[in-house]
């Protein structure tokens, strides 16, 4: 192909990060933003636990406590762990499928910036002083303007809508990437488990996020424009919110946990030096879990009173999920069986994940039994259950993934000794925090209480729980310390630093060049790289000769589109406020601010449509110059 040479602006420094459309850099951006929000959510968690360290504690007042639990849940789920999942997906999936890029590099950047500005908007509620306080589930009527008169819930609905757009775009991008961008020979049934899990997760995002977006829009219309969706006096129905929220909310749980399943599969298999046991049943189980995930939302609503028929059906549907989950657990165990297990920090997290997640799984089955759930529901038993799943499952999985792929992302192996110490600190802290909470719930402690009376036999268990939480906090700080000291080391990780790598990401330099693969690899089987290694090859067979590589141009538009939505969010939120200031009143009350924000975003969309992106080429000579082995 003949092509004209375009001179493309290539930025450096800050502008490089603001304009990048490189999935690896976007992965790093997701990681930094996710870690930032995870930190905020973690501090909120520690404050919650300090308040509950003893009965009738006065460390926090009731209102602040409700704000903290609301923001802790919302931040951790939407802004903490999901971006870290996206960080790993961005950094790794194109490499695992042998692609040079994602399907939509521009959209990918847009997804990040909308997520980021949505999250920022939500968290600015702390600075502005009216914080969401109706729980991360924001049940109406508590979240309606009648009972929540300040802007807290407005931050929630607007922030999450904007962040949700970003997540949805990310999901679409990864679906298209995995369907269209696989290297020759990389059939679906040869894809690594992490890619498979991310594929299903992306599909769940695609079908679940629009539901919550609608829910948030309805709540926003009620709160900002006097709508009646949930206003009982005008015929609205608060239960509708619960249905919409959980139709999204339950798949969300699987959106979170499936990538962890994928990470664990890859890590366990790598460090056992064994092929993943029962690969095809693993794939099937993942799909089945994703499918069933949409069928069980009402198990969050047994105590809402849906009637015995619905409760019985949703009970049984929920129990069914245990079957594919069980398949996964045993497949992991039998992957290790007969293997040669190396306990790196990454593998410690993965191996620690298995029994911990089983704990969360079995309590999940217990909760599925509706009559018993009448007792468990909205108690600390539930708190223990979902933290076992999300922290004991997902967060341990993420730590495993971060340790495992850190060298691929940054060219440096995290310090192993420190990593293992961190694992034990975090793991023991986790068990201390949440194991006792099962019993707190069973013996009568409801969740979301800002304090409790003495003499109810809650004191000791709450104390243990708080000590555990502090240990987890120390664990996270140790991880950050590890990141810091590691970043001071020279970036000298080899292509395959664990030496047991099985998949394509370990065939290219750490960190990879911007085009990932100098030559697109030819995939000849599952565990493509392992197969080549076992046949004595030192590199993949190329599927094409070395040639010039086309790359997309960087763009600042995604950043401004995010900012536009951010401004519009503020504009809508304060449209009815009196600022005691003619200028501000004029700007906000006439929707000028909201309009300007939307205009910025729409103008950027327009520009994106009319200005063609010719991209640029990395020429053959340049590839040879770098002397990079692909």
């Amino acid at each position: 192909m003949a092509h004209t040479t375009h001179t493309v602006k290539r930025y450096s420094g800050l502008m490089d990060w603001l304009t990048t459309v490189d999935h690896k850099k976007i992965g790093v951006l997701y990681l930094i933003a996710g870690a930032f929000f995870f930190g905020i959510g973690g501090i909120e968690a520690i404050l919650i636990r300090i308040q509950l360290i003893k009965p009738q504690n006065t460390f926090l007042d009731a209102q602040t406590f409700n704000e903290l639990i609301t923001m802790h849940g919302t931040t951790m789920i939407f802004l903490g762990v999901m971006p870290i999942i996206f960080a790993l997906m961005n950094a790794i999936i194109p490499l695992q499928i042998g692609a040079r890029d994602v399907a939509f590099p521009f959209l990918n950047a847009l997804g990040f910036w909308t997520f980021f500005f949505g999250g920022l908007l939500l968290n600015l509620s702390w600075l502005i002083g009216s914080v969401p306080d109706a729980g991360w589930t924001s049940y109406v009527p508590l979240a309606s303007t009648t009972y929540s008169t300040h802007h807290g819930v407005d931050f929630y609905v607007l922030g999450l809508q904007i962040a949700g757009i970003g997540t949805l775009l990310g999901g679409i991008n990864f679906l298209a990437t995995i369907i269209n961008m696989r290297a020759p020979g990389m059939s679906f049934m040869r894809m690594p488990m992490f890619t498979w899990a991310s594929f299903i997760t992306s599909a769940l995002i695609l079908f679940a996020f629009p539901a919550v977006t609608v829910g948030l829009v309805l709540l926003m219309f009620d709160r900002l424009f006097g709508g009646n969706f949930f206003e009982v006096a005008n015929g609205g129905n608060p239960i509708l919110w619960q249905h919409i929220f959980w139709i999204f909310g339950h798949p969300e749980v699987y959106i979170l946990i499936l990538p962890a399943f994928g990470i664990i599969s890859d890590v366990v298999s790598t460090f056992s030096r064994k092929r993943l046991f029962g690969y095809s049943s693993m794939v099937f189980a993942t799909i089945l879990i994703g499918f069933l995930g949409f069928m069980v939302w009402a198990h969050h609503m047994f105590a809402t009173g849906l009637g015995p028929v619905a409760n019985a059906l949703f009970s049984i549907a929920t129990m069914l999920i245990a079957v594919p989950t069980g398949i996964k657990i045993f497949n992991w165990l039998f992957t290790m069986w007969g293997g040669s297990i190396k306990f790196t920090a990454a593998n410690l997290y993965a191996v620690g994940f298995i029994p911990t997640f089983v704990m969360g799984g079995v309590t999940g089955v217990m909760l599925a039994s509706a009559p018993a759930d009448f007792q468990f529901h909205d108690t600390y038993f539930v708190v223990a259950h979902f933290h076992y799943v999300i922290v004991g499952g997902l967060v341990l999985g993420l730590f495993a993934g971060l340790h495992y792929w850190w060298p691929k992302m940054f060219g440096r192996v995290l310090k192993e000794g420190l990593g293992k110490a961190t694992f034990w600190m975090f793991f023991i802290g986790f068990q201390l925090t949440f194991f006792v909470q099962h019993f707190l719930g069973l013996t009568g402690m409801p969740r979301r209480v800002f304090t409790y009376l003495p003499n109810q036999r809650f004191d000791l268990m709450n104390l243990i729980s708080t000590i555990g939480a502090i240990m987890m906090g120390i664990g996270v700080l140790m991880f950050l310390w590890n990141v810091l000291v590691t970043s001071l080391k020279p970036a000298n990780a080899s292509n395959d630093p664990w030496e047991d790598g099985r998949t394509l990401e370990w065939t290219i330099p750490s960190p990879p060049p911007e085009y990932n693969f100098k030559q697109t690899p030819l995939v000849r089987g599952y565990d493509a790289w392992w197969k080549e290694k076992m046949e004595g090859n030192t590199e993949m067979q190329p599927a094409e000769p070395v040639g010039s590589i086309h790359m997309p141009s960087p763009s600042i538009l995604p950043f401004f589109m995010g900012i536009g939505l951010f401004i519009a969010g503020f504009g809508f939120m304060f449209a009815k406020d009196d600022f005691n200031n003619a200028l501000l009143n004029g700007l906000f009350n006439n929707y000028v601010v909201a309009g300007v924000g939307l205009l910025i975003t729409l103008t950027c969309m327009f520009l994106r449509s009319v200005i063609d992106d010719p991209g640029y080429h990395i020429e053959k000579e340049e590839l040879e110059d770098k002397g990079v082995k692909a």
Partner: protein
Amino acid sequence: MSAPVHADGQWPHEPEKATLEGRNKVLGFWLFLGGEAVLFGTLFATFLALRNSIGDGPAASELFKLPMIAAATIILLASSLTSVFAVQALHQNRVKSMIQWLIATVVLGFAFLGLEIYEFVEYVHEGHTFTTSAFSTAFYTLVGFHGAHVLFGVVWITILIVQVQKKGLNLVTAPKVYVSAIYWHFIDVVWVFIFTVVYLMGKVG
């Protein structure tokens, strides 16, 4: 891509899928419509849950005037047909014809919007405002979301018409026109559901 025509110089059978970018765009857009389907599905479910909660406001059967709705429906269905013709012209590389069909689509889209705005203004006069009842809120939200999609669609297609006139029909612009046509059909399908669920079911009670 900088190469405007196919490698062998021929206009390909499916120009929207002739490049990887084009294939990605078409696939990605179908996925996006999957999400849109859930979005409208949720809005429909909400409407169905609340459609009888009319409070003190007018009921659907008193409100809706089927002739006008039928006219709007015919207009929108016709616009889907014109966009089919546009895509046919696209496949045959008949640029002028394609642009004419696209203009027809946009005109019909604006006509539909005009009718819808007229309808809404009428309803407001009859005391059926956004805040009247749960039914009215759900009605304006569902139908309004659709209307906003139509508005976005006509603006988008207009921009594409100008683009094609300036840059010509090539492997960069072809996928854009093609996905805008899928979008337009999707909006049309949603309207068929709105016509049935909101208007017909509203009329019969």
